[in-house]
């Protein structure tokens, strides 16, 4: 560097112009960005103005919050005491009331584990084992084990049953789906065609059909001394159905992993099986987290179909409750409540999934 060298000084960064920040800028950018945006915004506001007052009036203003059916009929609005009265039944079905603490313990365990996962307190293998143990624990608690009174599965119902079906379904069908996807993607021809056949068969049939098969036809094929109870048959059917979809989601992730990743691991002398288990599958699952969460939500909602094979899940109990003669005429409240509960759980799952996506190396890259 001689004396004639000009020293390069990077210019300091300046704040953005005020027209790009603040509430006015937000309104402009999001609602009134041009004449098209403005028209859409006004139309949507009009629709809200037409529908919202009536809804608020029915749900809150004229609604009855305390009292009995007669109070409700006089007020004319929504009848929330009905939901309060039926709450236990909606949650647990005809499960013995005095044993209600057992499902409650399971619910708390589920919430605690979910919170620990969400806050990233528990990680790695401990996390996987905890989630694998949870449904087993729940089955023992609800069904009765360790000297507790046994409760027959025909008495299980309500939201408890819906969550059980979905939770066991998700926890078993994801690993099964991964295996199916691996079989389809890496397997020798025989394994590959078996996996393809299974996946395409299950995906080609509506869930209702599979549930009917499991509930009505399966006992006909099984040897008479092998009795599998109805709930278990339904659960297996849901797992297999879900696994077929999970497999296709996971396969998409497997295809997204560059060949260089496997090559690098193989070149280091790592075996093929370990390369797939530690390099390919974890990355593939991370890639497909959004659709995977989507499948979990779909599976939870699909549990409402079990009503047609005689299980009284949450929606089944809602239907039952609205037929109660004491509370006749309050169907709408029951279904609004059902919609709210389904939405609450599905939206939580969605938020949960987004948080999991946000984490990890792919997020730090940007």
């Amino acid at each position, binding site marked *: 560097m001689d004396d004639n060298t000009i020293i390069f000084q990077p210019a300091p960064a300046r704040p953005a112009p005020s027209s790009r920040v603040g509430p006015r800028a937000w309104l402009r950018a999001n609602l009134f960005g041009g004449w098209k945006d403005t028209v859409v915004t006004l139309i949507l506001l009009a629709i809200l103005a037409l529908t919202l007052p009536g809804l608020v009036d029915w749900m809150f203003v004229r609604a009855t919050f305390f009292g009995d059916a007669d109070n409700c009929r006089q007020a004319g609005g929504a009848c929330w005491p009905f939901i309060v009265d039926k709450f236990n039944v909606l949650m647990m079905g005809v499960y013995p009331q005095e044993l209600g603490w057992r499902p409650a313990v399971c619910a708390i365990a589920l919430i605690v584990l979910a919170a620990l996962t969400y806050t990233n307190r528990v990680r790695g293998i401990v996390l996987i084992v905890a989630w694998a143990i949870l449904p087993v624990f729940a089955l023992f608690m609800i069904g009765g084990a360790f000297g507790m009174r046994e409760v027959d599965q025909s008495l299980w119902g309500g939201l408890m049953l819906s969550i059980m079906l979905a939770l066991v379904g998700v926890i078993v069908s994801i690993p099964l789906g991964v295996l199916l996807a691996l079989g389809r993607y890496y397997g020798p021809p025989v394994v590959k065609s078996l996996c393809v056949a299974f996946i395409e068969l299950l995906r080609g049939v509506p869930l209702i059909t599979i549930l009917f098969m499991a509930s009505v036809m399966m006992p006909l094929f099984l040897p008479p001394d092998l009795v599998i109870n109805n709930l278990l048959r339904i659960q297996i059917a849901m797992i297999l159905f879900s696994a077929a979809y999970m497999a296709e989601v996971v396969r998409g992730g497997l295809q997204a992993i560059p060949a260089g990743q496997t*090559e*690098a691991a193989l*070149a280091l002398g*790592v*075996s093929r099986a370990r390369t797939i288990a530690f390099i390919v599958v974890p990355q593939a699952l991370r890639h497909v987290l959004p659709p995977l969460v989507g499948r979990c939500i779909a599976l939870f909602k699909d549990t409402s179909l079990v009503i047609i094979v005689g299980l009284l899940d949450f929606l089944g109990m809602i239907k039952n409750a609205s037929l109660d003669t004491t509370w006749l005429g309050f169907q709408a409240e029951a279904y609004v409540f059902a919609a709210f509960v389904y939405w609450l759980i599905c939206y939580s799952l969605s938020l949960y999934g987004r948080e999991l996506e946000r984490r990890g190396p792919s997020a730090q*890259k940007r």
Partner: protein
Amino acid sequence: MGASWNGAARPRKNVNTELAETIMTDTIESQIGSEDEIVIEMKGVNKWYSDFHVLKDIDLSVTKGERIVICGPSGSGKSTLIRCINHLEEHQEGIIKVNGTLLNENSKNITQVRREVGMVFQQFNLFPHMTILDNLCFAPIWARNMPRAEAEKTALRYLERVGISEQKDKYPGQLSGGQQQRVAIARSLCMNPSIMLFDEPTSALDPEMIKEVLDVMIELANTGMTMLCVTHEMSFARSVADRVIFMDGGEIVEQNTPDAFFDNPRVDRTQQFLSQILTH
């Protein structure tokens, strides 16, 4: 043409000893032995991609500690050649022996060879879902059953040697290309290989980062590591290589010492190639 090359006395250039002394002591220990020992032997190797003949009758012997640069136009089979050495590509005809182990369908042999041969890729191929430290520990733990503590100790030592130990808890995506490639080199070295293959290690890098990777490679060369390097860095070839191999159309066209190769190429195709890359 280059037949008299195997085992000939080679001048050791680039005696950047200060760094070389400190680097990779394990490697040096494993390198002690006969200088003329043949570690890679390829005889009549042929390979086809379906019906495209990509390698044609390749004969190549590499002695211990030899540093070879392979160059040639794209599609000439140079990458395929070195990928055959650790069996990432399968050859259909001929014999490949690495450290006396014959490469065939026997997966035991393949694994054996891969543990002794390190490879550095053009696209780095670090594992993006693992921290830098975990990237380095992965193979020693899962391919050599090394205890985690020991693997981490080795990993840290190599990270320090390539100058990025302070990045050990970051993810690959947070590092620059040059840093990633240095991590990739360190990752290979953690398996304590006796041979290193480089497949265009600087081709995906920004100009400012090429030097930091080449410096690490030069240091490695000075430890006596056997190296086969596909590269277009001709200054590297000139200063480090014992032998330069020029390939075209799946054949070894010419091989010679770097000085003779660059100053006095004998085959017209080589002359044409060199005039293309040296005068652009």
